[in-house]
């Protein structure tokens, strides 16, 4: 489905016609990312990041497949096999550093992609399904990244696995048996490492499948745009190719320059030195932190330090451990409800003065603070800061957004995308 003025694929030559009648794959590509997909003419560079995330996934899959040719999923051999990759395998250091930093860059572009959606209201009708699939992809990415981080079987790998599977033990009654089921034992060991490797190899392909759904769902209403005003006619769009293939290509160039710069010149900048120490099940590193992209969630986990119960009775309803785990998962799961929490019909933050203030001065600083505190040891000042920021984070989505949507008086929207771009009313609308 697309706009009626979308250019139609016309196969040139006998072979193209023959293929088109039997398996119209070129037609599919043409309509998906070719001249057959009309896109709002006013997209800014924030709209590059979906394509960049796709490229990042391809980089991870390609480097991951070759790393798996040398990696050895055994508690005795895993760490050494990673060192073998770094030292002995031809270009192995490059492939591993690219995979390691590729994960970070994947998260960087995905976070920008999510913030684009949050600011410009890309989650609103008729694009809720795209948003739901996107949050699903994000969850799958987190699971994949976590399991990948366990594979080198260094100190951070091991204790990360211990802590993250420990989340499940917070669940009342079934928690501990569930944790043992997930680990295949009482602590991370051979069984856990083997299944993490298996799933770490599988999940990227699941992600690729959900991305196909994500892009399919995108092509039903078509791309959103910075004004949030729906496409009204042919003058509002340009074909994806060559306009946005060129624009995405430019953005891709910048992305790859930054990516290789970090990969070549600061490959361990985003990692932890402790993970170059082989896993030791008898000694926890002094300060264990997850990878940077999990820090905000880790800060929320650590922010809950007091049991929730009936005051003065000593009855505990929800212990602090369970609260922290629930809050951490809840901070992501609440994004699934975002399309129905923000009821304002105006999509773009540009035309929402109040929303915009809470976005820039509330949500973004709270996430910056959470990220910062997540990497700090659990001293009082950092815990208190995390608690304030976490409280704002939840309030932003659960209280502020629904209220703002009701009381806010949005700015006047342009009549059309073309009018917003040219500053002139449409001839037809005038």
């Amino acid at each position: 489905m697309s706009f009626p003025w979308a250019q139609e694929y016309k196969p040139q030559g006998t072979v193209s016609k023959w293929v088109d009648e039997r398996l119209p794959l070129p037609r599919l590509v043409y309509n998906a990312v070719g001249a057959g997909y009309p896109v709002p003419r006013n997209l800014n560079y924030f709209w590059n990041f979906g394509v960049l995330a796709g490229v990042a996934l391809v980089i991870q899959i390609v480097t991951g497949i070759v790393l798996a040719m040398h990696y050895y999923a055994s508690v005795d051999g895993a760490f050494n096999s990673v060192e073998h990759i770094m030292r002995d395998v031809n270009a192995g250091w490059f492939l591993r550093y690219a995979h390691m930093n590729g994960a970070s860059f994947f998260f960087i572009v995905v976070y920008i992609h999510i913030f684009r959606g949050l600011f410009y209201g890309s989650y609103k009708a008729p694009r809720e399904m795209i948003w739901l699939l996107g949050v699903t992809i994000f969850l799958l990415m987190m699971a994949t990244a976590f399991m990948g981080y366990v594979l080198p079987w260094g100190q951070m790998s091991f204790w990360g696995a211990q802590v993250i599977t420990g989340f499940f033990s917070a669940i009342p009654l079934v928690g501990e048996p569930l944790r043992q089921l997930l680990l295949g034992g009482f602590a991370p060991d051979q069984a856990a490492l083997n299944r993490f490797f298996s799933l770490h190899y599988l999940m990227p392909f699941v992600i690729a499948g959900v991305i196909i759904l994500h892009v399919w769902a995108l092509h039903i209403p078509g791309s959103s745009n910075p004004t949030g005003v729906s496409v009204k006619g042919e003058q509002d769009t340009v074909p994806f190719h060559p306009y946005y293939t060129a624009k995405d290509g430019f953005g891709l160039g910048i992305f790859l320059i930054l990516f290789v710069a970090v990969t070549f010149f600061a490959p361990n900048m985003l990692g932890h030195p402790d993970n170059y120490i082989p896993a030791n099940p008898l000694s926890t590193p002094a300060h264990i932190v997850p990878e940077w992209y999990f820090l905000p969630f880790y800060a929320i986990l650590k922010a809950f330090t007091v049991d929730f119960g009936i005051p003065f009775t000593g009855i505990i309803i929800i212990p602090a451990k369970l609260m922290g785990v629930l809050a951490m998962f809840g901070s992501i799961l609440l994004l699934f409800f975002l399309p129905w929490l923000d009821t304002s019909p105006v999509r773009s933050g540009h035309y929402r003065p109040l929303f915009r203030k809470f976005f820039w001065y509330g949500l973004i600083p709270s996430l910056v603070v959470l990220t910062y505190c997540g990497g700090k040891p659990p001293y009082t000042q950092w815990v208190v800061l995390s608690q304030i920021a976490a409280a704002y984070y939840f309030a932003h989505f659960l209280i502020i957004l629904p209220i703002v949507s009701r009381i806010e008086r949005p700015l006047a929207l342009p009549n059309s995308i073309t009018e917003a771009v040219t500053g002139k009313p449409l001839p037809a609308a005038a």
Partner: protein
Amino acid sequence: MSTVKKTNGAGKKPAKAASKVKPAAPVVSAAQDTTEGEGVRRRDFIHIATVSFAGVGAAAVAMPLVSQMSASADVLAQASVEFDIAAIEPGQAIKTSWRKQPVFIRNLTPAEIEAANKVDVGSLRDPQTLAERTKPGKENWLITLGVCTHLGCVPLGAASGEVKGEFGGYFCPCHGSHYDTAARIRKGPAPLNLNVPEYAFLSDTVVKIG
């Protein structure tokens, strides 16, 4: 906002026609980017430059992805090994391993040397004398890879009790290649004699292979 603006000296280059670009133009037609009437457009050059640059980049990325498959440094580090051969009596052979491939080290008896030298070299499929396949003064030490030159099975005949084939050397059970006492191919499908690796005697009893 931007109304038609008069550019200085615009008369000199009518083809540029900056003033002709409407601010509203949703689709800038390719024609506006051309130098009118010329065969090669500026855009053609940009296309070719972009695709070439991306192509060179893709090739550069493909190199490590392919080269990671070839032997790694730790595999290449096994390139030479030393063996003590003092315990091998005449008529005995040992199987050992070099680069994860079997190696036969055989101490030939005078009868076996004589048998090998009696053969008319011209009649062989892969003509070589025993002297060419051993070191001077050490003609009794026949060192070959234990890899049949047909399809890579390990021939029999090195360990005691194994079939040595019709010519008293080695016999490959996979497809029936017979090698003589100089490990030369005499009968069967193998095209070449058993390969002699590069080796040197470090002393009378120690040999370094590779």
